[in-house]
């Protein structure tokens, strides 16, 4: 069964490609998925409905939470699966001719429809509440896409959204109910839940929640309004959605649970009453439609009410009749929708006031329609007749089976009224399409391929055959109904029951129904006047009022909480930090001890840094603030040295230097002073939050340090660092081996940041908003033919210093070599990829400072993105390659190579990871220099050029 579902989803995934290759004929190929499933299911369902054991499949997925792929074919799910796949295959075949050749939208449509068919199959076959829910919501989402097939009409978008919201609302209620039910039954498997029959208040609540899901999916009042809107979907979708999929999901769920839970308080009352009310309401609305597709849609609402009342009544004969009606409805409703599609495509309208005289033009279709509509109305010898007769018989016995007394008469009267309306709108449908109407021009339909009407013909033949095969079908459908206790009579499907109450009711329905149709004008005006005078609450209007209320609430809440101001957001976060963990801090304050400074240097550094930090806040000049913050940075490096962290000190000094220059590069463009800040309350609030946060952080430091009693985890790092990591520098081995995943993540952040910097500067939109690409600066030097110490380009820039430039060139290569050395020795001594890369970045920076961007391009004639990408790829590959050799990801190996002259080379593979780090850092430096250095230079030159030109023209 999993294979069948996989087949559907693979077909759906391949559908766009297929459509591109063979156009609309792709539907014929896609139809193979449900058709193959049908062929596979048929013998299994035959065996199981003959009394065989259910066919199960179980694949463990997440057993700890009961989420496993459990599927089962039972008599109920097997019959529904046949309807789903059979109708699905015929609808897909029909799509081949329904869509016009060259329709550009069908690549998406075909995939979604096939996936929808697969989801529906998964839904009826699933034997696990969670799997059921997953498929349930899959059909919801896919139906949203199908209904919104043409999003250009506002009404369509609204219809798709309504279907999504209503059925998702029900679905969520159902999920809660399913979880409660699985918990009460002690198993998430549906068969076991039904067998366990748990009871109690929890179960009653759970069942009610599940029923909310079922009736919203099956479009029962008060959720019925989404279904007529679903006609926004292409007609084949309507055929499938109304007849075999989506709305049948709710019926399936009710039928599945009815044998165990029909006696739960409220079950019968809710389903039978809602079912009958919906049946009558839908029928009345159907009689008032002029669009034949909409007429059918309301007809479906009516029929769904009938089906729910049947399967929900919870007696053996009603369950039997319900399953028979589900099959009959699947056959005739899909036929009728497909007929509407053909009429719509060949005439161009679905309005029954414009359709006239189609009987002569489409004789085959006329016969098909009469058969299907006759089955809907319950005429012999069709399937709808035998099924409906058994339904009447079942409801006639409700009084005996359940002891309902007078109520059972009322229920029977309800479905009789509903059936009368069904006869009337069935007649209206046939008349509406095929009759010759006075005042309407005779339609001249276009010719269509015979394949177009193949699917409705097959379905109509099945309707007749199933009507005649009642005695054969009876035991097969009974295998589901036998789960219920026996009732006053054993139900059967037959054309002749003898002169029974059911037959009399059938006759009444047909006669009164045809009379309603015959006097349709007075009936219509009566309906109008009643609708005008009696104001019943309209579920759709209530829904809209509700949704508008939710919309308003969300606007109010968003407007209140999302102020859009960065200081406010940060302030709120920090105040929460102060209040919540800060309170915990006070309660945890217990026996805190401190010690003094370790050395005078440390104390001096701390005082200097603290003073610099305070002065930074008070500073009004940008440059001053940057220099002061630099003091804290270098001071931090000093503290690292005193602490015994040479790697950190090295990196900190390099980063601080790089950052300082970068700040200056940008600040040269910004105004020298910060914008004025008035001495107001807001400023004091900022200072207060700052001081409170600082105090809180210092408090955390005290408490956390005092609370530390265990030995640090890194005590055990030294030995494996040498043995497995092959390096003496534990910090570096930690970076490239023990915690290499962290480093890999960090490299990705650096790549993103560097790319962000470049993209912010190089895609230039000036104040007029026009985007333009900055000129590429790489390789712009025509004279760079390798002459050492030669200037990058002749320049008249007075700021250039020849001495600085020449010295820079002299030391550049030495510095680059040193950076490589730093990277390589990092495994055993202070250094490593980060420090090496930063040294190389500083070397490039000096070249840029000495000679501008042309000099930088000469020093590094390569795209920064290339360096970044190569670096990240090197690091990632060096992490992946060990897996090919049978190791873990990022595992390092130690290789000793004997080289004849040099002796033994001690190689550790993690050096490649470090090379990746090195390259990424160089790439970052290069991007920063090119963007914030060269890019800004370029813009400055542009502006001065423009100013010169403007000055000249003025």
């Amino acid at each position, binding site marked *: 069964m999993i294979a069948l579902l996989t087949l559907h989803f693979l077909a759906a995934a391949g559908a766009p490609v297929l459509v591109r290759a063979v156009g609309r004929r792709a539907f014929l190929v896609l139809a193979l998925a449900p058709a193959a499933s049908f062929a596979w299911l048929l013998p299994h369902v035959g065996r199981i409905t003959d009394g065989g054991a259910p066919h199960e499949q179980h694949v463990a997925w997440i057993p700890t939470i009961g989420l496993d792929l459990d599927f089962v074919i039972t008599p109920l799910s097997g019959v529904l699966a046949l309807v789903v796949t059979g109708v699905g295959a015929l609808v897909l075949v029909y799509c081949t001719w329904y869509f016009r050749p060259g329709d550009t939208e069908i690549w998406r449509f075909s995939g979604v429809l096939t996936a929808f068919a697969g989801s529906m199959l998964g839904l009826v076959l699933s034997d696990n509440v969670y799997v059921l829910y997953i498929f349930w919501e899959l059909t919801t989402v896919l139906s949203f896409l199908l209904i919104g097939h*043409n999003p*250009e*009409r506002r*009404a*369509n978008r609204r*219809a798709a959204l309504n279907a999504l919201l209503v059925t998702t609302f029900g679905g969520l209620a159902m999920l809660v109910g399913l979880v409660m039910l699985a918990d009460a039954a002690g198993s998430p498997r549906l068969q076991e839940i039904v067998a366990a029959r748990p009871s109690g208040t929890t179960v009653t609540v759970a069942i009610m929640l599940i029923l909310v899901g079922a009736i919203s999916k099956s479009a029962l009042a008060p959720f019925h309004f989404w279904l007529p*809107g679903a*006609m*926004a979907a292409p007609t084949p979708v309507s055929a499938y959605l109304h007849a075999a999929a989506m709305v049948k999901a709710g019926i399936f769920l009710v039928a599945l649970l009815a044998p165990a839970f029909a006696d739960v308080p409220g079950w019968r009352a809710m389903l039978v009453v809602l079912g009958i009310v919906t049946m009558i309401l839908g029928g009345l609305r159907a009689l008032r439609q002029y669009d034949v597709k909409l007429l059918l849609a309301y007809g479906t609402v009516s029929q769904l009410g009938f089906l729910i009342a049947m399967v929900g009544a919870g007696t053996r004969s009603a369950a039997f009749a319900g399953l028979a009606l589900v099959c009959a409805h699947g056959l005739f409703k899909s036929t009728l929708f497909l007929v509407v599609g053909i009429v719509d495509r060949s*005439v*161009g*309208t679905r309005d029954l*006031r414009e359709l006239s005289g189609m009987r002569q033009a489409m004789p085959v279709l006329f016969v098909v329609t009469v058969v299907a509509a006759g089955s809907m109305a319950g005429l012999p010898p069709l399937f709808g007749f035998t099924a409906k007769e058994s339904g009447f018989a079942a409801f006639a016995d409700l009084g005996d089976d359940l002891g309902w007394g007078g109520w059972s008469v009322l229920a029977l009267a309800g479905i009789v009224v509903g059936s009368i309306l069904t006869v009337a709108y069935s007649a209206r449908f046939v008349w509406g399409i095929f009759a010759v109407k006075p005042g309407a021009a005779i339609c001249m339909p276009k010719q269509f391929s015979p394949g177009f009407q193949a699917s409705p013909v097959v379905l109509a033949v099945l309707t007749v055959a199933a009507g005649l095969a009642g005695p054969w079908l009876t035991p097969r459908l009974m295998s589901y109904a036998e789960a219920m206790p026996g009732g006053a009579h054993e139900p059967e499907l037959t054309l002749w029951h003898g002169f029974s109450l059911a037959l009399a009711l059938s006759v009444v329905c047909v006669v009164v129904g045809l009379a309603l149709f015959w006097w349709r004008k007075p009936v219509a005006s009566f309906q109008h006047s009643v609708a005008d005078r009696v104001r019943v609450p309209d579920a759709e209007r209530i829904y*809209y009022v509700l*949704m508008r209320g939710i*919309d308003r609430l969300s*606007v109010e809440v968003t*407007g*209140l909480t*999302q102020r*859009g101001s960065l200081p406010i957001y940060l*302030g709120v976060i*920090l105040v929460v930090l102060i209040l919540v963990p800060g309170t915990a801090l006070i309660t945890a304050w217990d026996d805190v001890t401190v*010690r003094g*400074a370790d050395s005078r240097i*440390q*104390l001096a550094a701390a005082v200097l840094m*603290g003073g610099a*930090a305070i002065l930074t806040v008070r500073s009004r000049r940008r440059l001053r*603030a940057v220099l002061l*913050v630099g003091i804290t*940075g270098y001071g931090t490096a000093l503290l690292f040295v005193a*602490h015994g*962290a040479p*790697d*950190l000190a090295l990196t900190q000094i390099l980063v601080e230097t790089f950052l300082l220059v*970068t700040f200056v590069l*940008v600040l040269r463009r*910004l105004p020298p002073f*910060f914008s004025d800040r008035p001495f107001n309350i807001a400023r004091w609030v900022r*200072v207060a939050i700052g001081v409170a*946060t*600082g*105090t809180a*952080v210092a408090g955390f*430091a005290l408490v956390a*340090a005092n609370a*530390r009693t265990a030995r*640090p985890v890194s005590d055990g790092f*030294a030995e494996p*660092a040498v043995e497995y990591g092959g390096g*003496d520098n*534990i*910090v570096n081995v*930690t970076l490239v081996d023990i915690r290499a995943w962290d480093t890999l993540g960090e490299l990705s*952040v*650096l790549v993103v940041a560097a790319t962000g*910097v470049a993209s912010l500067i190089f895609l230039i939109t000036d104040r007029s908003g026009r985007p333009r690409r900055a000129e590429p600066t790489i390789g712009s030097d025509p004279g760079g033919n390798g002459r050492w110490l030669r200037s990058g380009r002749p320049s008249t820039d007075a700021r250039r210093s020849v001495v600085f430039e020449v010295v820079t060139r002299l030391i550049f290569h030495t510095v680059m070599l040193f950076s490589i050395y730093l990277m390589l020795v990092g495994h055993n001594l202070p250094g490593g990829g980060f420090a090496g890369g930063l040294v190389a970045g500083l070397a490039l920076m000096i070249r840029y400072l000495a000679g501008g961007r042309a000099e930088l391009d000469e020093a590094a004639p390569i795209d920064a993105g290339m360096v970044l990408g190569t670096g990240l790829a090197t690091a990632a590959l060096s992490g992946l390659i060990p897996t090919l050799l049978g190791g873990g990801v990022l595992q390092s190996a130690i290789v000793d190579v004997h080289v004849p002259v040099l002796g033994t080379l001690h190689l550790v593979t993690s050096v490649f990871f470090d090379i990746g780090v090195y390259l990424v*850092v160089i790439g970052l430096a290069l991007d920063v220099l090119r*963007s914030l250095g060269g890019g800004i230079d370029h813009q400055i030159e542009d502006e001065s050029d423009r100013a010169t030109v403007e000055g000249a023209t003025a």
Partner: protein
Amino acid sequence: MTPNLPLVILVGVMVAAGVTLVLERSLTRILIGFVLIGNGVSVLFLVVSGPAGTAPIVGLSDEPMSDPLPQAMVLTAIVITLGVTAFGLALAYRAWQLTGHDDVQDDVEDDLIRRRAEQDETSVTFDEADAALPDEEGSDAPIEHREVHEVPATTVPEALDADHEDELP
């Protein structure tokens, strides 16, 4: 473990200064505050990582080593600070280029929603259903805005499809 008080106070001062700056509107100040907080947190790691020692390099000395794990964490943090600050600087420059200053403005969308809330406006999605019925063909847009491939293949003008609903009850 007993923490080093001068360093704890230093952490407090640096974080306090950094937070005060981060709450400003000028992007340069925010970035400087960010760097200050970064340095403060580096020192914080130093404080809680245990006593000072020799460099964590095997075979360098027999004295007790400083803890290498927090050092590895701080090392990545330092370099990340570099990357993020560079990005922030590019943002500040860009803001200056577009607006003439580097102050962080309030979010325009949020402001819009706030104004909608004050004026009691909602989206039109759930307005009372209009007369138009859903249909698989046709469009709300005027004909000339439609794409070329949507020329109807039937002989019946498309207007019929879109307009027949107004005769419904």
